[in-house]
């Protein structure tokens, strides 16, 4: 937490200067980068992600996916993930409806849901039990939430990632170590980040390599409208666990495919 912030220790300093994290210039650089996203009315990015799955015997195996997100605040998002094992998932929310589509199964589901992007993301995680890494950037107060999580931080130095000159910053709290590479020229967009879950004995990591950012993506009517492909079968979402006493209701006649 910011109130219990310890020191920010520049790696190049011979005698580390202890400053409150809230006043640290490196934190403000991170803040500037994250605020750029939260203040942006619309943006899109493509990213390659990977994570360690720790097996029962301690062996770490990496899985991952390519993800593309298009966000249009306050209430629209399109997410596409393509896992390395071939599983694909497309999720669209347009302030009125949520749609899921999995091309490999050729199945889809649609349900009504109104509200903001925050409402949708909470519904996605808490009710539909879907973890979408990086979707948290869609939260209105994403920057604020992320900043509260760090106790210490410092700048490692300049670093070139994917031929882009970046500032390499590191932050930590009692649960994670966070590294981020922020583009030095132009908009301070994140180029890469790595999260290490250090309390786990195997210290698994989650990493993201941002491949393409667009702060002014071309959005068409179809971007946030799901049209079922020919032959796709409509199925339902699993009943919410909070509604476990309810029956599994068949589709209403007018909703039938």
């Amino acid at each position, binding site marked *: 937490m910011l109130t219990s912030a310890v020191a920010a220790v520049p790696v190049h300093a011979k005698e580390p200067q202890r400053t409150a994290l809230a006043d640290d210039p490196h934190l403000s650089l991170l803040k500037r980068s994250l605020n750029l996203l939260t203040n942006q009315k619309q943006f899109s990015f493509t990213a390659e992600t990977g994570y360690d799955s720790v097996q029962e015997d301690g062996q770490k195996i990496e899985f991952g996916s390519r993800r593309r997100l298009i966000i249009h605040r306050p209430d629209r998002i399109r997410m596409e993930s393509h896992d390395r094992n071939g599983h694909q998932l497309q999720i669209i929310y347009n302030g009125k409806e949520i749609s899921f589509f999995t091309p490999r199964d050729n199945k889809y589901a649609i349900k009504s849901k109104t509200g903001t992007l925050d409402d949708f993301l909470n519904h996605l995680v808490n009710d539909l039990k879907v973890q979408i890494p990086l979707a948290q950037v869609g939260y209105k107060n994403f920057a604020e939430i992320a900043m509260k999580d760090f106790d210490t931080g410092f700048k490692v130095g300049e670093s070139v990632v994917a031929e882009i000159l970046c500032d390499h910053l590191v932050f930590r709290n009692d649960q994670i170590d966070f590294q981020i590479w922020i583009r030095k020229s132009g908009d301070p967009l994140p180029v890469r980040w790595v999260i290490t879950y250090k309390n786990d004995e195997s210290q698994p990591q989650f990493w993201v390599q941002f491949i393409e950012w667009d702060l002014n993506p071309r959005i068409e009517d179809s971007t946030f409208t799901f049209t079922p492909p020919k032959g796709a079968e409509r199925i339902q979402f699993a009943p919410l666990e909070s509604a476990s006493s309810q029956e599994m209701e068949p589709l209403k006649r007018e909703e*039938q495919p």
Partner: protein
Amino acid sequence: MMTLRPLLSAISVFSVLLLFMFFIPDTEARGRGGKGVSRSGHASSGSFRGVKHHRPAVHHRPAAHQRARHRSVRVGIRLSPRSYNVLTCRRTIIIHRGITYYGCGTVWYNQVYYGGQVTYIVVATPPGY
């Protein structure tokens, strides 16, 4: 030679059975993560907090004791959200009011999205079955 013929025949049958045992595809254990390999882990969430996220429990197939338990549950009430990513039984498939039902013995399933994947969950028996 005449007495050896039944013995040779038995050995050849046994060999075929052995081959079958070793090379039959293990369809029951077929999962999206591959047999014996877990894809889960809290690092998969990409969360900035270190809290552990538990992915929905997806089971490869209904076990015999689970099937027995399901039979005893009152028809018409949705059961627990236990889900399976594949059904290995000999399925009966029917469509009722636009929904596809998959029957394994007396237990019926619907495909639903659970945790972002298409899975099977146990549902009430469709009318007439």
